[in-house]
């Protein structure tokens, strides 16, 4: 299972911290710092996998990360996940963010830190993949967005809108 999803920039500033197990807030920050230390010094030509850090999981854990512009997207997973599968999942997650924010950049993530959580919850839940189909993900996110609009007149229509999407 995926144990944690982290987004931080090159300086180690957190943009998303999500853990799928009960871990205290201060330890979460420590883990983020440690992983940033491990990842940031690696040139892009090296592989995208690292053995788990001391504070999270040790050698039975894989850190799978991708580097996009100023940001690092890090998934920490146990040995039961396919590393390449996680790689692709990061790509799906980023593409989903891209659709929701239309050309996503670090600033979007800073000012909409709550929305990243909503997008992520459509991709990963309980440490497991929920959905990998981009249109399905953005449809779910946009529907929730529409509902959240203050002038949303027809909240009850939601079910039909969603159902239409499924074959």
């Amino acid at each position: 299972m995926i144990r944690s999803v982290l987004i931080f920039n090159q300086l180690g500033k957190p943009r998303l911290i999500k853990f799928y197990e009960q871990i205290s807030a201060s330890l979460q920050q420590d883990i983020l710092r440690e992983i940033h230390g491990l990842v940031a010094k690696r040139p892009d030509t090296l592989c995208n996998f690292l053995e788990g850090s001391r504070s999270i999981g040790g050698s039975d854990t894989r850190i799978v990360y991708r580097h996009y512009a100023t940001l690092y997207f890090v998934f920490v997973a146990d040995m039961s996940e396919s590393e390449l599968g996680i790689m692709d999942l990061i790509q799906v997650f980023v593409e989903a963010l891209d659709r929701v924010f239309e050309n996503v950049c670090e600033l979007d993530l800073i000012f909409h830190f709550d929305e990243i959580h909503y997008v992520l919850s459509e991709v990963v839940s309980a440490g497991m993949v929920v959905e990998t189909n981009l249109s399905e993900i953005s449809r779910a996110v946009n529907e929730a967005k529409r509902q959240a609009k203050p002038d949303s007149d027809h909240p009850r229509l939601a079910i039909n809108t969603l159902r239409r999407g499924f074959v």
Partner: protein
Amino acid sequence: MAPMKGLTVFIADLRKCRSQEDEERRVNKELANIRTKFKENSLNGYNRKKYVCKLIYMSLLGHEVNIGHKEAVDLVNSTKFSEKQIGYLAASLLIPEGSELMRAVVSSLRRDLYDTNECIVCLALCAATNVATREIAESLTEDVVMLLLAPSGSPFVKKKAALCLLRLLRRFPESVKAQQWAARVIPYMGHRDVGVTLAVTSLVTALAQQQGDEMRKASTFAVRRLRSLVLDGERVADHVYYGVPAPWLQVKLLRLLQYFEPGEQRPELLGILRRIIDESQEAPRELQQMNAQYAVLFEAINLGIHVDVDQGLMHESALLLGRFITSRETNIRFLGLETMAHLAACIDSLEPIKRYQGVIVQSLRDRDVSVRRRALDLLYSMCDVTSAKAIVAELLRHMAIADATLREEMALKVAILTEKFATEYAWYVDVMMRLVSLAGDHMGDEVWHRIVQVILGNEELQLYACRIALQTLRAPVCHESALKVSAYVLGEFGHLIANAPGCAPLDQLKALQARLPAASLPARAVALTAVAKFTNLFPEIKNLCLRLLDRFRGALDAELQQRACEYYALATVESESLLPTVFEEMPPYPERQSALMSRLLSRETDTEDQRTWVVGGRDINRSRSTRKPAEEDSSAVGGKQETIQPTATSATAVAVEAAAPTSLDEPPAQTPEEQERVAKSRKHYARLLWESDGILYDGAEVQVGMMAQYKPPAARIGLFLGNKSAAAICDISIQAESSDKSGDLVIQQATDQDAVPDSLMPLGQARVFFDVRCHRVFPTAPTLRISYTLAGAPTVLELQLPVTAAHFMDPVTISVADFFARWKQLGESSIGESQAVLKTPFLASDADAVQWLRNVAGGMGFALIQGADAVPDNIVAVGIATTEAAGRFGCLMRVEPKPSHSLTRITIRATNPTLAKAVATNISMIFDAR
């Protein structure tokens, strides 16, 4: 979220902060502001949402936030979707699990799960998944199960419900009552929506690990779905990812199947795997496509290893992997090595992998540390007797240039491999000494502790170890740990080389002393102990040793000072027996699991999903699989009985009629392991014929140690039963009885001791004492019967107890003239003579064999008569055996070793023929076992 101006401004403010202090100040100011706002009752929903958002942002940046819990609950209860959304987010991020307010969150969850708006239901499911408290598991599981199983529910809800159950199941398996609904979710693996199938398969995978065989049916669904995706080209429209149909689902299904035995689905599975492997023969051009396709491929190989590791398919996979480990893509190299390590850990013949040994060794130099690590794991997994020397040599070569983070693990693995595959003692000692010199700084104490343990436990190693130890001390550079090992070894066995040129006691002491000034405190402490042992070992340099100890009596370090004072005092006490007793040679360590292995295995932590394999050779993976609970039950049918007869094949064996193994299911075939066990136990038995304590039996499940104290004609025997297995053993009974009813030997449990415990936890030890009285000289050793039950399987161990008439012997010193008079007298009557010519090949190879013979004679209770024989190597000894009813019997012994013929003649003359025979038998067994 509609933009909230206040929040945007706050975030922008924080971004402008130049230092951590600035940010801290800004946050504190805002926190104070929010506190006052929260106190006002007039707060509207919009503002509440805004402030809670600010709090979430602060906590993301790592600031401690412990307000806003109540406000989060208010938001959860709001009718507005946007407020509810933030409320649930805050509840999962800010409110601690044990808080009273969580209860309020749970009650609104219950309501929202039944909302008619599916978006709200999903929101609640997400929140329940994230929060996942025990209360949710206990009170909401049924509702969530219903959402998953409801025929009318949308896929949108179903997949989230499945994963919510998964989370609750993992956190509180006892609260969700999985057995009530587990079987009903399996059919949803065939749902037409790929998202639902994916989520349910994840749930089923977790259930399969907990419920075991009840989930078997899932494998049928998994195979069916795989076939349709891989072979039938099922159209999954939206889920084709760069040309690969639903790669995540394929991976998940392949993974799930690794938790089941393939059974009759094997042929079909192999067909599917073959197709996946065949299709990957040509490398995809595009990177994304390669990722997706290879993700499936690697998992397929992993499943292939599980299904049928020794099939041709796996040999083909090995070829494919061989190509991957030289790939230009670092990721593929990494995964190739990792998967190959899995293959190496399970495959019977390592040949297809060994072909790539050169490439793998090269990978130790890869520029990526992650790849280097995998290469190390693979080398460790693929090592066997034939390749051990080459691999260990390569690892040692890389140790010098390896990065610090990797070096410790490398050192540990080298130590384990060397011990496991050593076929020559010299090689073991050489490698280990080299290892501590190279990597001493990077490894824990357990490595050098282990070296000492191994040397103590293997007599054959000790002489060579001493030579190397002295060499090490004299080398220009001597590492800390190497110093400790050397000091310890010389302290114990320095006498073995004392006669060699340049190795005299004084030379040994000097070499040790020269290292002291530069050594660290712990190393000096170990060295001091060695010096103290020298006072006992080498009386000729006792004074020098004392002078050295005396110097350290004033050491600044408390530990050193204490040691020096105590050792000094010990060595100067006027007592002949104190020093030899205190510094008696250390007994071999009881064979427990090597500390190194536990260290290596402890690095594996419990992850939420069980691993299907671990890094390491086949044996460790096999033993893992046999530990599965399901198989433990099946092995419980029918008891087994092990009968160990240490004397079974010895030429002059004491005739022991062990109880016929009537309940033996299988014939007592001599499998190699059994032969080895019998040989081992014969060795243990022989050792105890001249040493007072040691191991009597060492099996896979239990170990029996023995300690004997003889006060002829009485003796007290202590037996120690240790549980080596991973489970508790119970119904323990330990009985000893004399082999005949004559009453010549009386053996019974001591009355002044606690009762033997009925059961023993893993690593636990029970002990029981027996009182023995020798009434008359008896011909046969008593029998020890230990029975216990492990995991429902009763086991009876029948051992011969090394207590013979010859044990009730005391040394007697008589003059040379007296000896010859008695020798002649007994020889004339020739009633009590026993003579044998024994093969003793060790005489030629071991310079100290004669000393060893003397030790044996001494250990058996004889006094050596000096100068009685013209040949200096011959041994002449006298002892007297005491019985309770028949009085005392003198016993004379002559041992004539002939190194040139590798033979030794022994002659025993005693006033009792049975006694003479017993002594002769014991000696021949001792020689045999050496």
